[in-house]
């Protein structure tokens, strides 16, 4: 963590790139469209029976992609200093860890007889 923050500091406290962060309205609309399309794909996967075996992993990946898109572009995290990502990731990583750990404890381990 520290190294990244140091880089930021090296970059200086100067008013850093808000301007480069301003994408055009069209760009945002595009992102919105992509999000909608991915949602469509997800729902399609849900309905197409042939996809059933891959359903769970595919859906998780797709929705993760959506989440990343929103965070990077709508929330401009991509444009912010890197350590903001770290702060946020601390929460995301721990939350993901917790969800997975509990799912494993309750749904996976019992399959192996505890």
């Amino acid at each position, binding site marked *: *963590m*520290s190294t990244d*923050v*140091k880089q930021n*500091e090296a970059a200086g406290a100067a008013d850093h790139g808000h301007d480069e962060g301003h994408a055009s309205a069209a760009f945002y609309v595009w992102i919105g469209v992509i999000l909608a399309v991915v949602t469509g794909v997800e729902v399609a996967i849900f309905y197409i029976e042939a996809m059933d075996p891959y359903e769970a992993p595919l859906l998780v990946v797709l929705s993760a992609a959506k989440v990343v898109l929103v965070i990077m572009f709508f929330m401009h995290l991509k444009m912010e200093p890197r*350590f903001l990502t770290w*702060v946020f990731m*601390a*929460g995301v990583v*721990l939350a993901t*860890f*917790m969800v997975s*750990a*509990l799912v494993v*404890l309750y749904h996976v*381990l*019992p399959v*192996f*007889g*505890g």
Partner: protein
Amino acid sequence: MSSVGTQTVEQQHTSHEEDTGLWSWITTVDHKRIAIMYFVTATFFFFVAGAKALAIRVQLMFPEQELITPEVYNQFFTMHGTTMIFLVAMPMAVAFFNYVVPLQIGARDVAFPRLNALSYWVFLFGGLYLNSSFIVGAAPHASWVGYATLTMPEFSPGQNTNFWLIGLSILGIASIAGGVNFITTIINMRAPGMKLMRMPLFTWMTFVTSFLLITAIPVIGVALIYLGFDRLFGTVFFQPAGGGDPVLWQHLFWIFGHPEVYILILPAFGVISDVIPTFSKKPLFGYPIVVYAGLLIGFIGWGVWSHHMFTVGLGPIADSFFVAATMIIAIPTGVKIFNWIATMWGGSLKFTTAMLFSVGLVAVFTVGGLSGIMHASAPVNLQQHDTYFVVAHFHYVIVGGAMMGLWAGLYYWFPKVRGRYLSETLGKWHFWTTMIGFNLTFFPMHFAGIFGMPRRIYTYSAELNVDIYNQLATIGAFIFALSAVIMAWNLVKSWRGGEKAPANPWGAPHLEWSIPSPPHHYNFPAIPTVQSREPLWNDGEREAILAVTMEEPETEPVMPNPSYWPILLAASITLIWALVMTGIWWVIALAILPVIYCVFKWGMEPAFPEGH
């Protein structure tokens, strides 16, 4: 201004007189005053919870005694544990965060001064609310871990458990707000040149602790919501008959609970990582390693919660995982211990009270850590879990670790706060009565536990033959109580009559010692530039810094406005939470109006005087 050491208190108070009336304290947003209020409140609760501990010890002094009824006993140990953890150890650490961190990083205040005041008032009201349960005779009685299904309405009718769950959720708000505040402060308010890897260890540990706060508290927050819903709205989260699993409560509680214990200990580690180098006249040995070890403890601490649940029946695979994760924590903790010793090695050790408490911590905490390792071995845990062996373990790490660390901090920073020393004579008395009383109280508990005495029992059979250990513990507890009284006496006495202290009484290296004692309300007339980890130990750097920090500015820095909205908002938040107990929805709905009003007024009130 050549010699910092000779400056007197009077000289420092030439330019500015602060308001000192009650109103100025109520409306203050100054981190230093908030710190003092935190400390005083936490110390008050320490006596409250300590008194309960004494009652517990008296009841347990002899087998088969009936001095207090089982119901009252249960309320006592529940409120002892809850109060000590949430109203003593945590807020006392927060008191130090508040006072010290801005000074250490060269800031005028924390990032959100009003939010800081709000945290304090919410904490105070939450604590008072929790303790008001005694007035209505319905104090929480289901232990500080509140296991379902004992907390379900069938087994805990009445308001007891409602007080507990509502009280804790109120306190959670204060903690999360505090965590956000300190993370932002440390990320964003450092003096020029104060790189992360130049921050004093105490600031570092505050940073890690704050992360633990903002991540762990939401988990128990949700668990408390479930509990409240189960009790008030008939959900079945923990109701076995409805398919709910009471063990889920344990998971959620300990996912919070284990990071919580590192919330308690890391600040203490931070304190002594600052104190030991100062009194050894040597920089901290292996600074980056100690920092990383702290980060690692905080991080791994997230993956070990089920070591509180080895008896629950999770199965061998889960048990093994949690065994491994838990034991790994011994390594970074050990690294810290060895680095402290190495710092002292070859140093010039001066045993002030602060140093005594720090060294005492290293000696005593290790005992508690090692009994932790014994618990961490799942099969061994099956014998030790829920016995006095565990009680011994956690008092060793909490009292011998967290509390002793904070007391070290108290003696270390008091001269900064007050411009006067705490009496060293009384300090040494405090230390030695603590050491003797503490060990006499908690060491025998190992034996009581090993020989089969479960915890949370209001009486025990004479047959167990553990009376001697209980008697020693009870005697120890009273010696320990004496130490607490000595501390309080020292505080009261030295506040007015202590020997005057200069700006840097200990010859310490960090920024907080570069300003007058007590500091101006604006801390730094101008913000100094930092060039190293021990700025005041490098001659050139020190001169440059002191030239800035000891200066009397012609115009004082502009500080945030005082505000009464924090206390009003805190009161209305507490009110709405407390009204949940009534279970009448429209009362609760109405009570949201004052909250909205306060938030609105808060938002509209300028944080700084006009023109800033």
